């Protein structure tokens, strides 16, 4: 088991955002979390990263309890986050952004890692001297993913990677998710509003509602489930 969350609660001040979450991710899986706005998807992702820290429950990553660790310590354990809204460093160049991603990785790996990222995203190679803020939204998302990969994570967290992108880039992003998993064996936890696409690429999925898990199953099961269809697929999200 790569990641286990047991009965995790989290608060933002007085707001009880997560109410007893149980989520498991196995090595080599794509797991997706779907749910409406404000259901707690991003909070779950962030509390996994210690910000806000879980107020109750346990988070175990790779056999180690990481519930009480600081965000940067969790990142050092081998979890990389592609944050919602990409959050690239806009005034820095593409190359510098990628270097920031490799911040704590062994310097000897740098050339190999950068070559791997450039092979996956040739556009980043072409634009490596350009200011990251001048890239298009889809290119910025690729940069954010490339930056996260530079630390050689064991688990990649993707928070709403398709948010605000043109349809052609949305397809490309989901294709990348599948490639990362199939060709590079990357374990991925994917938070998405685009439930249809997310469930199609995921091995398993969880449905989050009001800070709790209401449904769990394989991607295909959830896609076929009448509750999911009614709430997330036929409501115009597809």
């Amino acid at each position: 088991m790569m990641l286990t969350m047991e009965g995790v609660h989290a608060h933002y001040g007085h707001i009880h955002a997560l109410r007893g979450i149980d989520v498991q991710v196995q090595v080599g899986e794509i797991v997706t979390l779907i749910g409406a706005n404000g259901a707690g998807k991003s909070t779950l992702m962030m509390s996994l990263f210690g910000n806000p820290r879980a107020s109750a429950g346990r988070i175990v990553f790779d056999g180690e309890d990481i519930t009480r660790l600081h965000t940067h310590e969790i990142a050092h354990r081998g979890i990389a986050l592609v944050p919602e809204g990409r959050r690239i460093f806009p005034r820095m160049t593409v190359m510098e952004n990628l270097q920031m991603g490799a911040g704590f990785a062994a310097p000897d790996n740098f050339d190999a890692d950068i070559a791997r990222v450039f092979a996956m995203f040739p556009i980043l190679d072409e634009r490596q001297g350009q200011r990251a803020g001048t890239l298009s939204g889809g290119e910025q998302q690729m940069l954010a993913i490339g930056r996260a990969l530079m630390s050689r994570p064991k688990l990649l967290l993707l928070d709403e990677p398709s948010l605000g992108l043109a349809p052609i880039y949305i397809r490309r992003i989901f294709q990348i998710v599948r490639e990362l998993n199939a060709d590079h064996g990357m374990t991925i936890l994917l938070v998405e509003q685009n439930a249809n696409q997310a469930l199609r690429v995921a091995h398993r999925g969880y449905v989050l509602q009001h800070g709790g898990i209401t449904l769990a199953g394989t991607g295909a099961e959830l896609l076929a489930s009448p509750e999911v269809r009614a709430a997330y697929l036929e409501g115009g999200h597809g």
Partner: protein
Amino acid sequence: MSAVVFAHHRMSPAERVRDAAWVAFVALLLGIPLIGLTTVDAGGRLEVSTRFGMLALFVAIAFGGRIALRATVDHFKARKLARQQARGASEATAASTTRRVSTWLGWFALGASIGLPILFSDNRYVVDTATTVLIYVMLGWGLNVVVGLAGLLDLGYVAFYAVGAYSYAILATEHGWGFWQALPVSGAMAATFGILLGYPILRLRGDYLAIVTLGFGEIIRIILVNWTDFSGGPNGISSIPRPSFFGLEFTRRPAEGEQSFAAFFGLDYSPMQRLIFLYYLILVLALLTHVFVSRLRRLPVGRAWEALREDEIACRAMGMNTTNIKLSAFAIGAMLGGFAGVFFAARQGFISPESFVFTESAIVLAIVVLGGMGSQLGVVLAAALLVLIPEFGRNFAEYRMLLFGAAMVLIMVWKPGGLLSHREPTVRLGQREETPA
């Protein structure tokens, strides 16, 4: 009435005429009651008379005016479009031109600053002013680390300047330390204060951070004013020893057993020797600061500062310890401010809390912002401007500060990103293997 709008496409002449005709028609409708009909006083009675000639003139003016207006608007739009296209294409060349100009300007500034005291060796005023410029350059470079690189808005920077100055003053007057012994210790003191300030405000950003740092600056000043036993209160500390040139004093009659600089080199004594020595001293300190900061910028810690300025959450997601990054920025910025303070105390020979008021923080911050956040050369230009403008303004007496303010506003209107807002990447294409990853 939909024809009378500013069309977004290019209009053909026929469309222009139709557009103008519409406007003329509206003018005619409005004009009939307003211009066409008028009342005249005919022997105590009001009579309506017509002025169709006048109305025709106004309608013609509306027609012609509309055509002229459209043509002008279209002309400017086309020019703007062309400029935008040209800019998109030449962004890369513009960047390399800026780089060349910056390099050239940098070397020119260095040459000028080395040559200045030789050219003006008997002009006390010029050397003194240049020394002041260099103090502000050094303060600007120090604050640039905190504000320009790490993006932490610090309005109380003068506190560290004061800590440096008072550390040297007290170490020198009460414990007999020399300038060179006191310099690192005072810098370390200032850095400690930087960390002390940094710890409680780690979570703050933007406006809140600015307010707390502002308060910190005031706290230090008020302590200096009120703690008379320690700092001499409002009277300050006087007869602070001057730095010596490898043990050679810059005095007419050196103390027993000491030798003066003039006597050692067989020169006639002149007070200018000390001033020029001080000038070169701050020049060396400033250059060391510059080398230090530009090296740091290329190291992981410097890049981390810039990443912190760009996006703190992303930094944490990258596994960076933002606590350490912020504290290191505060500590290093404070240390550089402390060095400048030591020099200031040694140069003046007298310090009092009046030298460390909020205005100083504001001027140093203005230097960083006007220079273009994060730009080293920009700081030099801005420091020179902000020190020299009030100097040139002396003839204008009480209008001096007005001039100063107007100049700042003009710079910001003309160059909103600062004098040199171009950011030099820490890695350039084709040089990847030279930088440590």
